[in-house]
């Protein structure tokens, strides 16, 4: 009935054959290997009788004393093979039979037989001592085998969790391994942010339903006091063993084990193994938690670094155009009479340029902030790529005055579902980038074509190459190539492109054009089927 109960609760049970074949099967070996049942006694007797008969036949040739020695052989064999019980029986039966059959008078017990009492006693002693030694030896062999199995189980677990530093995977390995060994179900509970225990790993799929409220109280108690509980294995009870995971004297979590068979708990070797496991698990869990803390700290350090870069960038990139604006304006206000209309126009133009630059920086920062904050919402609608390119070129018309433009758009390019404002900004940023890094007066090429379910758009400019180690870094925030010319800009343009493109589930990358220059390509998925009515 217990079997049926356990099965109903969805346990993973293995049968005997699986046990023997698994490299961690250790609980039932003892009985199998040292089988002392009625069969052994029967075989022992058979052997003894056979040898007795042979001995009797040989008596005339070897003499009684020698023949009696021969009887020792089956006794020793029986002791070695089947242990004390059968050996003692064998000894008694041997002497008595021999006496009865072959000692004068035959087929009766006579008085001269008393000296065979000595033989009998000695035989019995031999049988007993040899049997006991043999049994002990067998037990030691079995014990050694068990120890080996235990070591290999511990090794197997430590190998599984050594390489893994992710907490969930570690928990999974632990509960599955322990479940394998105990043939039952296992849960691992760890404290959450508020120090309340929650199930992190479970060897059966439906974890939460396994633990009832009483058990939760037990888990909490074990966690707080750091002492193991349960596992008394009273027959017929569904008992759970609660093992605290302790490192540095502090409980880190609790392992709950519900063994497959109640008899499990009465084997001290199994309990020792489980305790060894719990220490190993405690260390692994602690290590995984520390690894996660280290990652968080690294992320915080990284955002600190970005913040610092941002502040120094802001400071420089706003102050520069502002100083040219303030300088030009104050001159026009105070010393206006000094300047010719020509020069006045130049000063005014520099004010305009500075102001437009600041406007661009503000836009870039806002875009970056949107990406970082995670509140970026895509307003997708069907877009015509040629249309968006046209808008971007219109916006950059002034900057493109000195750059010949080549536009190559595939005929019948499909509409794509995208956020038109964001894609337009990507194109503007790429055009701006192309102008900045191209040799003045050289051609800029924009091309668009469709490949399968995606559209590929490229921006190519002539100029210096990007060093291969920087190919991906240029899409990082605040990254700027080392260039001979002083290039203005916050270094955010390409990072914004990457953020917007990836939000559309597209990809963006750069490559060097062997003929000199750089090509930046991005892809956008078509995004659906046009619903023509």
């Amino acid at each position: 009935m217990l079997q049926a109960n356990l099965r109903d609760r969805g346990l993973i049970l293995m049968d005997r054959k699986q046990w023997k074949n698994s490299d961690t099967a250790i609980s039932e070996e003892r009985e199998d290997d040292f089988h002392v049942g009625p069969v052994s006694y029967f075989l022992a007797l058979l052997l003894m009788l056979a040898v007795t008969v042979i001995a009797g036949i040989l008596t005339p040739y070897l003499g009684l004393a020698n023949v009696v020695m021969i009887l020792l052989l089956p006794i020793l064999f029986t002791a070695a093979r089947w242990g004390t019980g059968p050996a003692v029986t064998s000894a008694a039966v041997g002497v008595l039979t021999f006496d009865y059959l072959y000692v004068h008078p035959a087929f009766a017990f006579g008085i001269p037989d008393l000296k065979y009492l000595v033989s009998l006693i000695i035989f019995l002693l031999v049988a007993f001592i040899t049997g006991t030694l043999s049994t002990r030896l067998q037990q030691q062999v079995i014990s050694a085998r068990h120890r080996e199995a235990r070591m290999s189980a511990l090794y197997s677990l430590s190998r599984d969790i050594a390489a893994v530093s992710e907490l969930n995977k570690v928990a999974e390995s632990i509960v599955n391994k322990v479940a394998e060994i105990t043939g039952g179900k296992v849960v691992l509970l760890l404290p959450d942010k508020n120090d309340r225990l929650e199930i992190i790993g479970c060897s059966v799929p439906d974890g939460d339903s396994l633990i009832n409220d009483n058990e939760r109280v037990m888990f909490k108690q074990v966690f707080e006091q750091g002492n193991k509980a349960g596992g008394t294995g009273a027959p017929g009870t569904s008992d759970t063993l609660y093992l605290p995971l302790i490192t540095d004297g502090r409980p880190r979590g609790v392992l709950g084990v519900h063994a497959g068979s109640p008899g499990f708990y009465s084997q001290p070797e199994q309990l020792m193994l489980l305790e060894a496991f719990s220490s190993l698990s405690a260390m692994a869990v602690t290590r995984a938690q520390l690894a996660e803390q280290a990652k968080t700290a690294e992320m915080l350090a990284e955002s600190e670094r970005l913040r610092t870069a941002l502040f120094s960038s802001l400071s420089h990139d706003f102050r520069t155009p502002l100083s040219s604006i303030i300088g030009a304006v104050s001159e026009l206000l105070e010393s206006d009479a000094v300047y010719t209309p020509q020069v006045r126009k130049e000063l005014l133009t520099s004010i305009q340029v500075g102001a437009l630059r600041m406007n661009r920086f503000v836009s870039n920062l806002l875009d970056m902030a949107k990406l970082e904050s995670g509140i970026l919402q895509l307003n997708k609608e069907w877009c015509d790529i040629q249309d968006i390119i046209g808008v971007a070129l219109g916006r950059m018309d002034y900057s493109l005055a000195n750059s010949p433009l080549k536009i190559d758009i595939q005929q019948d390019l499909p509409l794509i579902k995208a956020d038109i404002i964001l894609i337009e900004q990507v194109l503007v940023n790429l055009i701006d980038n192309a102008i900045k890094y191209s040799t003045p007066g050289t051609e800029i090429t924009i091309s668009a074509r469709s490949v399968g379910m995606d559209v590929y758009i490229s921006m190519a400019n002539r100029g210096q190459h990007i060093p291969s180690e920087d190919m991906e870094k240029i899409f990082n925030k605040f990254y700027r190539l080392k260039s001979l010319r002083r290039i203005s800009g916050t270094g955010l343009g390409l990072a914004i492109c990457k953020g917007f493109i990836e939000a559309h589930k597209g990809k963006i990358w750069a490559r060097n054009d062997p003929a000199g220059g750089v090509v930046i390509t991005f892809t956008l998925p078509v995004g659906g089927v046009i619903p023509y009515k």
Partner: protein
Amino acid sequence: MINQGARILVVDDETQILKLLGVTLTSHGFKVNEAATGQEALMQVSSYKPDVIILDLGLPDMDGLEVIQSLRKWTKTPIIILSAREQEHDKIIALDAGADDYLTKPFGMGELLARIRAALRHIAGLQNEPVLNFDDLVIDLAHRRVNISEKEIKLSPTEYELVKNLAIGAGKVLTHKYLLRAVWGPSYENDVHYLRVYMGQLRRKIEADPSRPKHIITEPGIGYRLL
């Protein structure tokens, strides 16, 4: 000149903007009145009777949209709205509620003047003209003919309807919804893909360089305008 003496009401709570617009528009020959709140604006429209209203959407007392809705109950005076970048949604709602055009801050005076001129042309009854001229693009409504640099262009009926609506708008922005309703009908007012496809076809027929259009200007996220 259409400009001379045209009355403009500028509504914005920022004194700097009011001063700037007042000074520049006056220098270009317009008469300018100012209002700093929605309530003031409503009063000024009935008393000052401007020819064009320039309205900032971010007013302190009333939502710019409310002002538009109030005004549209009784007047057809063109309204040009001013708003910040990235409020496409607000702009579309304002345009659909009756505003005629929009400007995104920061804007240049050239843009503002172009919008004002387009608005004034519109109310001057130019849509009743049989022939509309846009530099090399000439649209003859009476004969349903479209010429580029004096050469006739063959347009499908849908393409013609589209360019006709844009031309009658005369430089004003027309929202996606407006164009879809006008050319395809109310049940198509959300089917932007039709608009995209036909606009593309139109651009390729009308523009010298379809990738750098001079006539059919796209206002991303909002609509189209014909210049």
